[in-house]
């Protein structure tokens, strides 16, 4: 009589029962590490994001065009969107059960997060560039 279970990892050999083998631990570790960086970045960015509310164009540029706010916001946008992409992957995997639709949603998320991060960086560089 065999005592082995039906549950086997895709890496060590195929079993006939479901075992997630899609790198859950590295994913969780990645969310943790990015979130540690985002604690100071997020708190500081909140200050300058609130600072642009209700300001005219000159005021907005003055608020975030200086080196330190610009650098912090740059890092927040890039690290934030890498973290947000992985986080949104979780949400999609939890709620989208149709395999084809899920694959499309994951690709859309990848490119949306890249586009947001890239345009965010371009905008801040333009605002902060010495005139």
């Amino acid at each position, binding site marked *: 009589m065999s005592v082995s279970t039906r549950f086997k990892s895709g890496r060590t050999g195929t079993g006939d029962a*479901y075992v997630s083998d899609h790198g859950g631990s590295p994913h969780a570790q990645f969310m943790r590490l990015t979130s540690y960086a985002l604690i100071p970045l997020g708190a500081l960015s909140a200050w300058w994001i*609130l*600072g642009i509310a*209700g300001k005219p164009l000159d005021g907005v540029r003055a608020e975030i065009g200086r080196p330190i706010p610009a650098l912090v916001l740059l890092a927040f946008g890039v690290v934030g*969107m890498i973290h*947000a992409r992985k986080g949104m992957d979780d949400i999609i995997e939890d709620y989208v059960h149709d395999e084809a639709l899920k694959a499309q949603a994951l690709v859309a998320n990848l490119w949306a997060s890249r586009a947001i991060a890239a345009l965010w960086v371009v*905008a801040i560089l333009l605002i902060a560039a010495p005139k």
Partner: protein
Amino acid sequence: MADADTDRRAARRPLSPHLTIFKPILTMMMSIAHRITGAGLYAGMALLTLFLLGAAIGGGAFSAVSWIASGFVGNLIILMIVWAIFHHLLGGVRHALWDRGLYMDPQGRELLAQGTLVGGILLTLLLYIFKTLAS
């Protein structure tokens, strides 16, 4: 075909948790709020990116996007983004504490849930007051 059989049975299995039959409790609501603020921040970052692009280009482009950060709607959007950052940030700190096995007992996790909820609102208000005084 064990695989196909498992697939068919897996598809018929009900999904848990059943949204309608659980009593809403604070720790659960804060768990869900972490997801909602995360997704909300995704949308918020997209809006802010549009606004920053407008501010970078200036002129008509800025007029076209200024609704995102000024007027009643704009102020509300910015305030919601700032609140979402703080709420989600405290939710992240809560995760970090739990990762270390801290505050996992009934009183501890209730305290963290309350701290996340109250702290997010409090930090947003404090920052708002500071900013208003500073300008």
